């Protein structure tokens, strides 16, 4: 037997090398194709390409303990009501600062802080997409003497220990625009976010109205596994269940909140479904890809419900009054969510009670079917395509922000 083994060995020794090489190639390729062909770089997609989309990836369940107050933007208070007398320093820990949504958010929070005399300084940090830097930014803000910190938690639950340490050191932490599953009162004082179910219901109700209660609708979601899209889809289903003529025929379909991927996904849906009467999408920026797919397929555009995005508004405006126009409704992309988040943190630092809701149900911001001028579709070509016109900054502040 041992003789036999020795005899066959030389042949075998060459074989495993080639086998391993071939298998490695296959595995690597399989992996490469899986990750690369359509999903690209996760961090970059989450941060840069999707604009406001990144932070919404973590709209998680409500924290333990008492349920957070739900309300509309009408319930907001003025920062003067919650601003204390003792001078305080505010920190803003941004997870990824390089897109228009974040730029607007930063300007909004600085403007809001300017209205409270007790706030002596606003220290802004940008983690540039790095989890490690995001953690050390929060620690750094604490050691720089911040009394209140507003966190945009792109890095997700990895930030909870740093936030807990800050809270233990007596710093009041608030987050937006999502909850990352920490413990209310222990890891942060408030998580401010817009209710995904409410967004789904708002889009679906508009869709029912514009399609007169009868139609097949697709729902375009975001990255695979993001918690927000399924919750929004649940809101859509809730409304469609009450309207038997309405069907959600696909969704949430993953688009990575990316224009090019949305175009491909929509082209696929158009191939699969000969009839699509409406599109609901949870990111206005990538919805332009869906428009392209309809046009490339030579199919007439259908009503679209999503959130506001300058370029989408401009696409609507360019087609308004011509053949191939479409109906559009949006809820706000809410870059102003930093304001209530700041107020909650400042109130906590001043030992005051902030009566505002922390879970916001957004009303429609634009509605092309409405005759109400306040709901008119907006487009500003002087601003970047990914600018958010539902910002609470005024026109002058916006054009100053973008160097106009």
């Amino acid at each position, binding site marked *: 037997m041992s003789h036999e083994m020795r005899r066959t060995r030389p042949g075998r020794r060459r074989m495993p090398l080639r086998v391993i090489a071939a298998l490695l190639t296959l595995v690597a390729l399989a992996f490469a194709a*899986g990750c690369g062909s359509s999903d690209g770089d996760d961090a970059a997609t989450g941060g840069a390409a999707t604009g406001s989309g990144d932070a919404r990836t973590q709209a998680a369940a409500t924290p333990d303990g008492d349920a957070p107050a739900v309300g509309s933007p009408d319930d907001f208070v003025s920062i003067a009501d919650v601003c204390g007398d003792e001078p305080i320093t505010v920190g803003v820990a941004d997870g990824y600062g390089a897109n228009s949504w974040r730029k607007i958010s930063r300007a909004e929070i600085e403007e809001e802080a300017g209205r409270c005399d007790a706030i002596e300084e606003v220290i802004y940090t940008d983690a540039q997409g790095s989890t490690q830097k995001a953690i050390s930014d929060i620690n750094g803000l604490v050691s720089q003497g911040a009394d209140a910190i507003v966190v945009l938690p792109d890095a997700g639950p990895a930030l909870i220990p740093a936030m807990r340490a800050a809270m233990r050191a007596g710093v009041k932490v608030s987050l937006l625009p999502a909850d990352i599953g920490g413990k209310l009162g222990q890891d942060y004082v408030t998580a401010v976010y817009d209710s995904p179910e409410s967004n789904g219901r708002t889009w679906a109700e508009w869709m029912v109205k514009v399609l007169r209660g009868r139609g097949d609708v697709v729902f375009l979601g975001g990255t695979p596994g993001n918690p927000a899209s399924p919750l929004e889809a649940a809101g859509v289903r809730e409304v469609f269940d009450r309207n038997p003529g309405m069907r959600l025929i696909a969704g949430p379909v993953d688009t990575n909140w990316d224009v090019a991927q949305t175009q491909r996904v929509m082209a696929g849906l158009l191939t699969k479904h000969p009839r699509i009467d409406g599109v609901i999408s949870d990111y206005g920026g990538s919805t332009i890809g869906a428009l392209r797919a309809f046009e490339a397929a030579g199919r007439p555009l259908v009503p679209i419900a999503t959130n506001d995005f300058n370029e989408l508004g401009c696409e609507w405006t360019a087609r308004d009054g011509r053949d191939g126009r479409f109906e559009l409704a949006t809820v706000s992309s809410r870059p102003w969510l930093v304001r209530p988040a700041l107020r909650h943190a400042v109130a906590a630092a001043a030992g005051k009670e902030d009566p505002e809701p922390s879970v916001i149900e957004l009303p429609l911001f634009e509605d092309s079917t409405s005759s109400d001028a306040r709901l008119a579709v907006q487009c500003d070509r002087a601003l*970047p395509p*990914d600018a958010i016109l539902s910002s609470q900054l005024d026109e002058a502040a916006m054009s100053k922000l973008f160097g106009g």
Partner: protein
Amino acid sequence: MRLRLAPELRGVAFALVLLVAVSAVAASGTLRGSALLSMLPFAAMLTIAAIGQTLVVQHGGLDLSVAGVISLAAAIVTKGSQSLAGGLAVALLLVLVAALAIGLCNGLLVARLGITPLIATLGTNAVLTGVVLTVTDGVPSAAPQALAEIALERTVGVPNTVIAALIVIAVVAALLRWSVLGRRHVAVGVSVPAARHAGVRVSTYRVAPYVAAALCFALAGVLIAGFQQSPGVAVGNDYLIPTVAVVVLAGTPLTGGRASVLATVLAALFLTQLDQLVLALGAPTATQYLIQGAVIAVGVAAREMSFLQNLGRRWWAALRRAGRQRPSTPQSPTTTSSRQ
């Protein structure tokens, strides 16, 4: 009539035909004119970038700066058209200069300083990502209307992006096949010492592919910018792995040597149509990736068919030897007789 295909084309052509057949059965809608017209621009842009990658891989290199160059070209052409005095024309000129500089830098790092291509281009890519963020300030700009129209419109029914790809294919294929330049490029790719002995100025020919590749990437970046209208600041990242996958599917060995531009084109078509087919089937994302990964693995494995046959024969022989060593094992006489 007998169809004769160059040997390097057979594998990928077979895979593509198979994919088209599967598409016809599983989702015939993906083969309709309108579906093809929306698929082709993606294939065209991938083809242009992949041809650049092919040229580098032919020399045993790998250009990972493809992501950075595409993003940078898109950033310059969008931001530049808005802020530069000359508008689109000046921006395009700037893209050209940037591509030449990047290609030259990559080439010199690899050929002159002897840095491994993987490391050199990875470094360049990191630098380019930084430059893109500096140029754009992290905020994407809209592509000029003229460029968007060029990238989105069709000429006599053919998308302009496809026409651009056809021009690149024709130029590169013709250069490689019929020009002295191309022949020397291939010679250096096959063997540097042999090329040197044949009197080829090897160092120049080792730098050139990186320059040509950067030009291809930049052209792809400009078209992508026009096509997407407001490309994200990391738009090139989506092209990093697919360009390499296309090159490998096309049968170009990563160790360098001969390559076929036409095979690259077919592989790009294959990958894009596969994407579209899987999307049209409406599979969830996880399944999409599994199918894509498996199909590419099988595609590459099919090219290794002769190797697999070899392997099978050896295992069979080993099995038979093992069988002979143990005469107590019952053996069917028909098997032994048919084998002998």
